[in-house]
């Protein structure tokens, strides 16, 4: 039967398309149902276009500081339309790439809005978005296994609902027609601080309002503190322990009432407000309730192998719960595909999922923060190494940075690594591998790190944890 599959993925984001390719590699008949854009949020309206914008910001930042490098740059400026055009072009290229990969792996793309009508049965309804070439049409499909990979969407706070004009989510913020003179950002997670960096560099007057006492709440407090100082030095205003209680929309601006934890109330007026207060899983209209699929706080409840409580129904990625990161979704896609194919899939250790934030300076981390490690009862050895002690970082003109490593004093197990500074998002993987291979401080100390590289700061941080840093 043509409409019958071994596995159908609902959603073609990083979870769905990667899982589909893996399932196809394992010889299964695979389909992916998509309603908006192949590749999902990440390449279209998430990670990739954001990185394209931030790259423009970074280059602009360097040109602004050309003098520091002995260079002369005159007559330069921002062409926001050009910046956005480049970003959109890259997004399209990546999305097309995903489409190509699916085709190459003989994964069917089915275009429309999916809902589960019974175990193993999916009805795909037509949608307004035009279907890509070669996509199968709406209709009834069956599959032995159905994987919910529908992702998440921006969370909307009551009374501060995004309107696409004055109150933005990342969708609008990724493709601005112009640079707002002033910008209020609610939320200081990865999305919030990345837009803060971008718009500040593009010339906006940026204020971040964070409910919790610390910006970047999931990061290590020391790293977040370091980043905050740098942000404030760049001129970004930051209010922590502060709540946007009310937003009044003007003709071309918004006025927000902000209450701080000390009881003070102030009003801030800005041209635009970006709501970056997290995302919620897309669990609606899928027929999950009727099938009895268990959900909790907006996410589908799954076990380590991405199985829901209903046999044959799986869930991966953002919709299956935090951390809501593309690489976590990809990995779960593979786990689900392998489990479905009867391979020995291993549950992922969520503690070892790294996180990367592309503000200036960049932030990257894996494992436990110092506070969490203490809370867990470990006796710690903590290493710190600043970029100022690293020749390559200084030569790059990036002497502000910190590598913090946290070890279990008893066993030498690497519990966490937290980095802030230039290009640390490309460094963190060294520590991720170390943790996955269960290395102790000894192997890290004995490894040779190439000179001159910023990665030497990683080595020095480990040495510092054991009281033997050289360049400090």
């Amino acid at each position, binding site marked *: 039967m043509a409409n019958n599959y071994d596995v159908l993925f609902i959603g073609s984001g990083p979870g769905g398309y990667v899982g589909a390719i893996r399932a196809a590699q394992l010889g299964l008949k695979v389909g992916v149902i998509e309603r908006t854009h192949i590749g999902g949020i990440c390449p279209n309206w998430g990670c990739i276009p954001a990185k394209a914008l931030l790259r423009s910001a970074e280059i602009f930042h360097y040109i602004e500081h050309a003098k520091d490098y002995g260079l002369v740059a005159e007559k330069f400026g921002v062409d926001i339309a050009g910046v956005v055009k480049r970003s959109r072009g890259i997004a399209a290229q990546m999305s097309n790439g995903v489409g190509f990969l699916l085709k190459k792996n003989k994964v069917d793309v089915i275009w429309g809005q999916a809902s589960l009508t019974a175990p193993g049965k999916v009805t795909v309804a037509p949608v307004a978005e035009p279907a890509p070439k070669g996509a199968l049409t709406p209709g009834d499909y069956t599959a032995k296994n159905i994987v919910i990979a529908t992702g998440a969407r921006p969370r909307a706070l009551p009374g501060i609902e995004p309107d696409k004009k004055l109150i933005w989510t990342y969708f609008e913020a990724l493709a601005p027609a112009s640079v707002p003179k002033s910008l209020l950002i609610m939320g200081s997670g990865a999305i919030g601080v990345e837009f803060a960096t971008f718009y500040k560099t593009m010339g906006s007057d940026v204020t971040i309002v964070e409910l919790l006492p610390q910006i970047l709440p999931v990061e290590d407090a020391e790293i977040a503190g370091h980043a905050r100082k740098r942000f404030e030095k760049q001129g970004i205003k930051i209010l922590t322990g502060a709540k946007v209680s009310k937003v009044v929309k003007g003709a071309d601006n918004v006025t927000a009432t902000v209450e701080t934890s000390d009881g003070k109330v102030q009003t801030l007026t800005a041209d635009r407000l970006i709501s970056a207060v997290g995302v919620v899983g897309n669990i609606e209209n899928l027929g999950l309730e009727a099938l009895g699929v268990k959900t909790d706080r907006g996410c589908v409840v799954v076990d380590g192998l991405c199985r829901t409580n209903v046999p044959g129904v799986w869930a991966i990625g953002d919709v299956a719960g935090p951390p809501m990161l593309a690489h976590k979704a990809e990995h779960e896609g593979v786990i689900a595909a392998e489990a479905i194919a*009867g391979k020995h899939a291993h549950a992922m250790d969520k503690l070892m999922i790294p996180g990367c934030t592309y503000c200036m300076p960049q932030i990257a981390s894996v494992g436990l923060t110092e506070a969490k490690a203490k809370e867990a009862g470990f006796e710690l050895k903590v290493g710190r190494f600043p970029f100022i002690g690293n020749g390559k970082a200084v030569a790059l003109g990036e002497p502000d940075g910190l590598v913090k490593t946290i070890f279990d004093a008893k066993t*030498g*197990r690497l519990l966490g690594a937290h980095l802030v500074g230039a290009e640390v998002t490309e460094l963190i993987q060294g520590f991720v591998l170390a943790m996955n291979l269960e*290395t*102790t401080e000894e192997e890290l100390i004995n490894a040779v790190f190439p000179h001159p590289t910023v990665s030497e700061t990683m080595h020095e941080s480990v040495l510092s944890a054991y009281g033997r840093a050289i360049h400090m």
Partner: protein
Amino acid sequence: MPVEILMPALSPTMEKGNLAKWLKKEGDKVAPGDVIAEIETDKATMEVEAIDEGTLAKILVPEGTADVPVNQLIAVLATEGEDVQAVAAGGGAAPAKAEAPKEAPKAEAAPAEPAKAEAPKAESVPAAAAPAASAPAAASGERVFASPLARRLAKEKGVDLSGVKGSGPHGRVVAADVEAAPAGGAAKAAAPAAAKPAPAAAAPAAAPVSNSALLEQVKAYYEPGTYEEIPLDGMRRVIAQRMAEARQTVPTFYLTVDCDVDALLKLREELNKAAPEKDGKAAYKLSVNDFIIKAYALAFQQVPDANQVWGGDRYLKLKHSDIGVAVAIDGGKGLLTPIIRKAETKTLSAISNETRELATRARNKKLAPAEYQGGSSAISNLGMFGIKDFTAIINPPHATILAVGASEQRAVVKKGELAVATVMTVTISCDHRVMDGAMGAQLIGAFKQIIEKPMSMLV
């Protein structure tokens, strides 16, 4: 996923071996631990155990095939829910380089012949002690793949990594495996399991319990303040570990005989009376135990095949009767077994003096390791405590141990009439891997005969 069964390596140097026998047929269901085949080399025979549950779908290397290279696919197992036929078909297509079956020397279940002369020492890990095929690398002494953290945890916890089944990629031992492994082996020995019926909450026996977890569990049974915690000293730790290991791994059978010792007691009295004086003291004072040592030593010479110790994949057949004598230290604080070397060649008086001297030094913990390690067998004598009879736990690598009870007057039937005789009950514990019942009976029979006709010990 069908499970591939590969030719195991019995030793680090083994490159090929003979597939002696299939103990399961195609289509047979197998459970983990089931012996499915026997592999032999010129030195040893080893059993291949199933690791997974399933159905033996296809045998790719027939019984009797000689020189099968290590790691060659020898069979395919269909796991639950898999089509045995399909797996068998798939397995058959695998590149099994089974050469024309040559007639291999029959191995059967009979134990391998006694170790050849060139086999120097028992360096191999006891194959029967470690579940054979479930950890072929470990059993053969090959490198154990383990993460650095797992290695460090194992070292701290005293876990032998070769006995830990790895759950990581390609069977790599990761930290969680070590955390789940019981420490050393001492853990089980230390558990006073018999002291009190374990409440239902106690962990199932199979579940590995760490030392500290066990301690907490045990302490939970007793009211705080009603006991004193006494840490193990080194000797107690070793005894706990070795005895628990012996009890768990040595298949032991017991043979008991009564010995009439009237003649022996009479001879002893006469010999002691006749002892020449030396420096105002008798040159010797023979104890019943000295006779037992001598008799036991001679018995081994009469039944030389019993004078063997277990070496894992072979035995060591000993020439001399080196007899260990269990000596209690400081009223129950421990136990040492100094050895009377070549006891068959020594006179009773020499044995007597040597035993006394060694026992004194043992009690003072002044023995050198060489004085209590090795040996043919050991004697544990609780007769002086009035114990009538008991069984002793073999001290590996020994294959036997003699438990000696008290000499006491009993009513016996002699030539159809009731009579009074002094009788001593002895029980020998035998390792069935080394000897069978008949050989054990021969050994203890020889002992009884010598004890009851004690003059033979003088010539």
